[in-house]
């Protein structure tokens, strides 16, 4: 696959692992539709432990790839700015601030020695502060670090995440609160930084904190029987509904919910798909994303090779579409429609309403393994 990518880049007139391609969106006559101008950005990998942040356009054409020192995970988008934040997946040591148009490195973040990045970052709505989930591994404590983008990305504060193993975080509507998925898993660099050390006693939760003071505003957990459901990924609709995807740490044939909906102040509501779909989710959700309407959300299940779709209004399962090794999900500007990416190199448009899957037409994106998460940048 790496070789194929190199060949492709040569054909494009550029080459080398660190070459940055300029944006090259073909401009048709007239004004392109917003979706046609959209750019998708994600962590990616080649075949030889080579890792990147890569961007492609609505057709799937690679726009740039920027080499990373280690495997990335999610990308944080700075509102109204060229910056995007790529934080190394857990146990991460680096964070890079890149130019979203070119992939150029604009700043570097270094994790303190007694912390490890956990792969997810989000900016405040005004773009000034970057929030990153981290592991305070000696105290089995999750933290959210705060970095000032207007002061050279200086680390200016650190808040408790109110749980262990914080993973994805998002701003709540209004922009003053952060919701954090505390996965509950304690890991330590002395044990490779990824192996869970507390499966029997893990206590995942969803926590909402004030982004300025770090004060806990809301918190919810699943019932104790389900304490091995690691709450890892989430997305927030414009009305404040939170959709969460779980990763089960128990037995492969236990019957447990893998999706939850949370209205802060209430209990997390677990929801399930029909048995033959639920089974194919293989106890593992990889990515959560609301659509443009905020009513439909997609949850990818890469172990089962499915993307499942749910209705946040009725709290019900909608449908599923097979997507081998599919994980990254980003909403397009059309209700019920998403772009999905896979570790096998595929990119699709997935229509939850019509239950349709269409391959992105440009093959250049197929030269990479697309990692866990996908973000859409509106032009």
């Amino acid at each position, binding site marked *: 696959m790496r070789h194929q990518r190199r060949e492709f880049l040569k054909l494009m007139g550029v080459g080398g692992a660190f070459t940055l391609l300029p944006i090259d969106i073909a401009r048709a006559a007239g004004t392109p539709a917003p979706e046609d101008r959209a750019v998708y950005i994600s962590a990616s990998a080649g075949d030889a432990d080579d890792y990147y942040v890569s961007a492609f356009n609505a057709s799937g054409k690679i726009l740039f790839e920027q080499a990373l020192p280690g495997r990335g995970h999610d990308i944080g988008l700075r509102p109204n700015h060229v910056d995007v934040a790529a934080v190394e997946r857990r146990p991460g040591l680096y964070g890079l601030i890149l130019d979203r148009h070119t992939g150029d490195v604009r700043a570097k973040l270094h994790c303190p020695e007694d912390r490890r990045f956990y792969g997810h970052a989000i900016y405040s709505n005004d773009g000034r502060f970057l929030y990153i989930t981290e592991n305070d591994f000696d105290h089995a404590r999750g933290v959210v670090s705060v970095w000032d983008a207007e002061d050279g990305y200086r680390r200016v504060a650190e808040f408790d995440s109110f749980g262990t193993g914080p*993973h994805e975080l998002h701003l709540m509507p209004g922009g003053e609160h952060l919701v954090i998925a505390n996965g509950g898993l304690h890991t330590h660099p002395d044990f490779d930084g990824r192996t869970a050390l507390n499966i029997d006693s893990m206590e995942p939760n969803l926590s909402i904190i004030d982004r300025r003071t770090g004060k806990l505003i809301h918190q919810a957990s699943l019932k104790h029987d389900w304490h091995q459901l690691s709450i890892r990924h989430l997305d927030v609709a414009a009305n404040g509904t939170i959709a969460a995807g779980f990763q089960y740490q128990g037995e492969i044939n236990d019957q447990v919910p893998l999706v939850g909906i949370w209205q802060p102040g209430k209990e997390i509501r677990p929801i399930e798909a*029909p048995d*033959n779909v639920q089974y194919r989710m293989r106890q593992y959700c990889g990515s959560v994303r609301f659509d443009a309407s905020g009513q439909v959300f997609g949850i990818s299940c890469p172990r089962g090779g499915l993307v499942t779709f749910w209705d946040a209004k009725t709290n019900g399962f909608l449908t599923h579409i097979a997507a081998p090794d599919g994980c990254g999900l980003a909403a397009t500007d059309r209700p019920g429609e998403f772009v999905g990416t896979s570790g096998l190199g595929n990119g699709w448009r997935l229509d939850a309403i019509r239950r349709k899957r269409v391959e992105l037409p440009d093959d250049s994106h197929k030269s990479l393994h697309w990692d866990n998460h996908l973000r859409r940048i509106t032009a």
Partner: protein
Amino acid sequence: MLLKSCSRLMLLSTTAAIAIGFAAPNAHADIPDENYRPVLNHLLNEVMPPKLDDFHKANAQLSTSITDFCADPDADDLKDVQEDFHQAMDIWQEIQPWRMGPMVANGRDQHIEYWPDKHGTAARQFRKLLFSKPAGYTDPEQLSEASAALQGFPALEEVLFDPKNTAHMTSSDEDGVYLCQYGAAIATNLETIAGELRDEWPEFADAMATAGPDSMDYPTAKFAATDLYRALHEGILIISAQKLGKPLGDNKQDAKASRAESEVSKRSLRNIAHNLTGLFAIYDGKWGDVGSEGTGLAALIDSSLLDRSFRLNWQTVVDALDGLPASVEDLLAQPDGYDKLAEFKSQIDFLTTLVENDIGGNTQLGGGFNALDGD
């Protein structure tokens, strides 16, 4: 001990052979998608349907025999019913690992056998049932709407094998009459479920065998075949972690036979023997008199040495199990029973590594970038 050493030697020698590079030279070339299709077609359309038919027939026989027994209960007839239970359970344990499509739809596998039962739900509900004796549970249709823990083989096992219950039944007292009617309802319900499973399978098999880009369920034959590989992989994992790991516990003092599957009928290890038969059929393509050798996942492996070594290792495990009693309880009652059980688990674990590394790798069905190492 000699046997144990030999089996270890055999396992190690195979590992060494593979490690020094006997894998096919073109092992990394992509297997064409069309190569997966005959495997799918053979396993799902040729091999599985007769087994599902056998399962249905075995349950029909069980239903008939328990109904006959209840008409005039005696100890000899009870033995016949127990034997019919074992026959049905043998086939179930062979198809149990094929967890896909209609097997798992509508909770069917759990309705057939509610297991593992982490919280002892079945025993608790069974006690309540006997106390209150609700009439609805003697009607198969109403029973089919009841808790899964009271519907399938574990509940029937309690009825047919727990000495307290069999004493009631053979003496035809009030509890015995109720137990008989309830047991007959379970068997009839199982027959119905088995019939539904048999009838729904062909549509699922066709969807798998005709996988293609227009399908929203199975876009490629390779993707469909992944479900077969997963059934093999997960089947071995479940044997190790649950069927053996749970009764073994953390150490000898923590071992508990009652945590094993089907211990009331003393057949927990017999279950595993039949699991291995059904699992090996996924690899080999031959299942008893059905199918033909080398037409399962084995057809995708381009290395005769790897194929032979996998078969040899699998047979070693089967032979080891043949030397053990039918139940964990009987094995743990032996002076070195715990060690034998632990040793057998280690052999199963070795098979797991072979399935993951050799079968998953060479069939290219082991999983992708995100599936294998997500976050």
